[in-house]
């Protein structure tokens, strides 16, 4: 069993130089996240632009019905099966995720209540009841 607790490092108690480092780490991390986001949205915009160009090239020559029929007519059995399995897999994963969040909400609250009874100074991760990022902490 542990001996008496010693004084722990507490964020905010650092020297000025350390705070400067903390700020630099935070800025570097935010910059990294921004670059990642830039890549993410650049990819999306690039793809969306390609789609617009294709639609522009087809505009005036074909109707939506033509395009739809051609797309559907182009689907082979193997392609269709791949779409069904892919889409089905995504749908199931999405439902499972929602289910887990609901379980977190119903059972998680009880667990934290029981833990609170055992350890009155229990600390929290500050996530929402569903186990998701707190809106105040999201990017």
């Amino acid at each position: 069993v542990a001996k008496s607790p010693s004084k722990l490092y507490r964020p905010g108690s650092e020297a000025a130089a350390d705070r400067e480092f903390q700020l630099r780490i935070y800025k570097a991390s935010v910059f990294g996240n921004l670059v990642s986001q830039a890549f993410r949205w650049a990819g999306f915009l690039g793809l969306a632009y390609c789609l617009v160009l294709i639609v522009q090239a087809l505009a005036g020559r074909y109707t939506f019905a033509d395009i739809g029929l051609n797309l559907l007519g182009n689907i082979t059995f193997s392609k269709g099966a791949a779409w069904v399995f892919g889409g089905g897999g995504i749908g199931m994963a999405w439902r499972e995720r929602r289910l887990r969040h609901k379980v977190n909400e119903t059972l998680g609250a009880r667990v934290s209540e029981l833990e609170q009874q055992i350890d009155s100074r229990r600390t929290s991760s500050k996530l929402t009841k569903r186990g998701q990022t707190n809106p105040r902490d999201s990017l």
Partner: protein
Amino acid sequence: MNAPAVTALSTAISLLLLWVLLYWFYRRYRVDYFRHNLFVLRSELFDHARKGELAFDAPAYTILRTTLNGFLRYAERIGFLSTLMAGKVVREIPADSELLSLDRQWTAALETLEPGVRAELIAIRSRMHYEVFQQVLFSSPLFALTLIPLLFLLLFQLASGTLVWRAMRSTYGACENSFRGVLKPLDAIAFGMGGRELAA
């Protein structure tokens, strides 16, 4: 309607859907998965304290639980690029800085515990670090899509190389005695050749 137009259109739609899958669904799933694993570790830690193996206010418990809480809270921000950028700054921090004192405090806190509990806590912390490492690698869809298959191939090559080498060793071990019989004249021939070269 010509076939290339249909192909171009269906490819563009497929790529957009792939983007949604990777950057929307996968990223969120990965954060949830990471959090779930950390929740399991936090529960294990809580159980050790509940059983009375260490106090709820023991420094080791406080340090580990608070760190787990921090990773749980900011899981969404853990990424390959942000970790890489932050890592560059972290390397500049002087060794005597208070920011690095937590590790020293952790070591000191462990010394106050029974060896068995200490080992359990070290294992939980090490698993936590492994989870973070995985999150850094796999949270980036681009990274996961490009470098991970390459790493996997490399690992496979390494593993298969090791396996082949082991198989060779065991084969040699099994027929070592018989092979020695063949080696004797070979040794003699080699010795003779070597001697001839030396004399020349």
